């Protein structure tokens, strides 16, 4: 790919980017969120047209207009968010789009898929419905889809974001095998440890431009990070030393959704980090505490108040602030203005809603202005729609709104997902400020870096239970075992 430039409204996503990929190599594409890595690969895969530049495959200049063209050229892509048809079987998913004839025979499809999988050493049951598979298995289906179409170039977009460490190892095994059989692999990631482990060559993107190209032996994690961000990156912020007080949040034997008898305690002035691979009950934990999911048995207490059967409004009134993992589905109403979003969660407060239900719009707008100034939310004014904010600013707005009420407890779920380093630092600082102010913080995160940076205590969540508890200086391998439920009784908290 030479001199690729791609513009979106208001942003240049790729600015004169060139990338060379050799046969039989794993080439890592590294950069922070929004640097343009996904965009570049989507151009290669034909999902976007490029504005300037050229693409050559095997020496031939080509124009890729659609995924079909890309596949025809031997390019395949495994997206970060899998695109699988849940109710279909593995085989149906693999052959979709290339069925080999107008009639579809299940037994034949199954046979082909089994053969293909065996050829590359994959384990998979072709007749299983995709919705019954584990995440690691789903990823294998995605890779099989590409292999079925005879790709020579395989693009993987943040493949380990959803894998356990063991599954990631298994993936790397498979990738090495593919590489050795002559395939080229593009490995997009922001996880520098993994990149250093698996890649043969590394290209670093920053703000849409290529800022460096190197190999694992010639660089280090710190150097890569610096290239990614353009300045030395602090991996740890300074944690304020606070006196840890009485328990504020207390969960006892909670059964709800995927939670099976969960016990947890968070004290005032303390940050408890819940580490775990996604899919082990994180969402249900947050939802249960906030009253968005009914608790089947067990208790949730805030100070001494029993939250278990309260509705969300009451739980908020009791002093809980919530930064949800899905900004768009649980945090903001994107089509409403900023000031209307600032009101969300507080629309019942007498300050903003007078008797009879009439809103004090002036007061709400005043509140909104204060929030966006104090929390550095970059927006033109408070009337603009929330949708126009970047991810980082959306998150800041949510934080501003939630923290403004002097909550006793802050529940933050995946608070920095999709944010760039500047926004991440800001959010982390806010969370640490809460701790300094003596509030209780429950942090749920799939990023171990984040857990380590913020937590006083680390607990691991596996299959709906807290499996173990660790001090904040515990080695990651141990915490990793807790995340897999691989603990004996002695360690379990």
């Amino acid at each position, binding site marked *: 790919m030479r001199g690729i430039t791609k513009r979106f409204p208001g942003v240049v996503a790729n600015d004169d980017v060139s990338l060379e990929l050799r046969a039989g190599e794993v080439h890592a594409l590294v950069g922070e969120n929004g640097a343009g890595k996904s965009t570049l690969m989507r151009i290669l895969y034909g999902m976007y047209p490029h504005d300037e530049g050229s693409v050559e495959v095997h020496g031939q200049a080509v124009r890729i207009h659609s*995924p079909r063209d890309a596949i025809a050229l031997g390019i395949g892509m495994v997206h970060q968010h899998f695109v699988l*048809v*849940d*109710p279909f079987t593995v085989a149906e998913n693999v052959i979709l789009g290339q*069925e080999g004839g107008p*009639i*579809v025979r299940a037994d034949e499809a199954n046979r082909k898929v089994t053969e293909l999988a065996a050829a590359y050493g994959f384990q998979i049951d072709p007749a299983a419905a995709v919705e019954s598979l584990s995440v690691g298995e789903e990823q294998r289906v995605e890779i099989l*889809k590409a292999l079925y179409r005879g790709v020579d170039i395989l693009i993987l977009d943040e493949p380990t974001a959803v894998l356990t460490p063991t599954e990631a190892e298994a993936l790397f095994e498979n990738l090495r095998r593919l590489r050795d059989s002559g395939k080229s692999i593009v490995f997009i990631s922001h996880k520098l440890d993994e990149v250093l482990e698996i890649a043969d060559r590394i290209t670093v993107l920053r703000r849409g431009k290529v800022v460096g190209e190197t190999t694992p032996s010639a660089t280090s994690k710190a150097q890569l990070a610096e290239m990614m961000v353009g300045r030395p990156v602090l991996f740890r912020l300074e944690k304020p030393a606070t006196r840890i007080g009485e328990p504020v949040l207390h969960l006892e034997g909670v059964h709800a959704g995927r939670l099976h008898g969960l016990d947890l305690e968070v004290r005032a002035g303390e940050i408890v980090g819940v580490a775990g691979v996604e899919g082990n009950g994180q969402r249900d934990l947050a939802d249960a505490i906030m009253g968005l999911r009914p608790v089947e048995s067990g208790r949730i207490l805030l100070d001494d108040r029993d939250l278990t059967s309260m509705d969300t409004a009451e739980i908020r009134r009791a002093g809980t602030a919530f930064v949800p993992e899905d900004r768009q589905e649980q945090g903001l109403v994107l089509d409403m203005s900023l000031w209307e979003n600032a009101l969300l969660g507080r629309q019942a407060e007498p300050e903003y809603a007078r008797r009879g239900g009439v809103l004090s719009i002036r007061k709400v707008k005043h509140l909104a202005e204060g929030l966006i100034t104090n929390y550095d939310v970059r927006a033109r004014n408070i009337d603009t729609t929330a949708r126009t904010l970047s991810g980082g600013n959306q998150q800041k707005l949510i934080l501003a709104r939630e923290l403004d009420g002097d909550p006793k407890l802050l529940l933050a779920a995946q608070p920095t997902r999709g944010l760039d380093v500047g926004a991440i630092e800001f959010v982390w600082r806010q969370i640490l400020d809460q701790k300094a102010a003596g509030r209780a913080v429950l942090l749920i995160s799939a990023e171990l870096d984040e857990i380590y940076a913020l937590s006083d205590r680390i607990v691991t969540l596996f299959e709906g239970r807290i499996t173990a508890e660790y001090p904040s200086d515990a080695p990651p391998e141990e915490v990793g075992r807790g995340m897999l439920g691989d603990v004996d009784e002695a360690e379990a908290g």
Partner: protein
Amino acid sequence: MLAAVDAGSLRFGDIGAAVGIAFTYFTIIYLTGLGGLFSERSGIVNIGLEGMMIIGTVTGSWGAHHFTLPPPDGLGWGLPWGPIMGLLIGMLAGAIFASIHALVTVTFRVDQIVSGVVINLVAIGIARFLSTIFFGQATQSDPGQPHLNPINIPLLSRIPWGFGRAFQQLSPMVVVAALLVVPVWYALYRTRWGLRLRSCGENPEAARSLGVRVAPLRYEGVLLSGALAGLAGAYLSVEVTNSWGEGQTQGLGFIALAALILSNWDPIRLMLAAFIFGFAQAIPLRLMDAPGLRLIPDPFVRMTPYVVTIVVLAGFVGKVRPPAAAGRAYEGGTT
């Protein structure tokens, strides 16, 4: 002798007749429901089925009238061309009308329910307009419209005690509709086209990422739904009432939707659901004398189909699984 056995003043013959009527309405509901099936499986919610049916009723009636003239040179092969053309034209008109829904929802990505509501509104107007052109009056057609020769199902129509009446004097379309399940099922589950269509309704991003063209497939789904609903409407005006009248669809298009939900979007289960709802239609028509029902005033019995639909819907939501992507507009172009 046994035919005179009573249950109250309700005779088995009446029950048989009621089942026969149920078959008639089954045909309408099943055809329309199949139409909805194709559309929704491709990812486009279609509540405009009623409107598409309406178009089918008026055009079908016209077709039946218009084509009853004997064809030249004895090319007719003795077939009743009038009704056949009526049915075909109703089908075609329904598909053409459905293209509006397809255009608006697939290309312009307007909310699918909004479009469906609009389609229903517009259909009533168009039907009136066409009626003035076809029949010179706005709300009904002339009487004396031809229809297909009714048939008796062999063997089944001989069932004694009056139950056989269920299978007597049925329109051939009933059989056609019932047999449709075979090609429909095959097309949906055993062909490449069906696999791709279903993928558009479950996860269009996945389909597109593999090079499947989502927009054309969705168009096909919607046009099919228009064709089938139009056919159902034509059947109603050509075979059942032998005339066209405004409002004759009586909400059957929506009942078909309910049947679709009840059937969990499966063509085989849809047959059962369509029959149940068809029977609900028959109750006020033939079973008014049943014990118990006689105690309820007339107008309330007429509400039966609607009440049944509501009860079914209230009981079955959450237990069924619609196509995952139905109702959401799909971005990503038409490549």
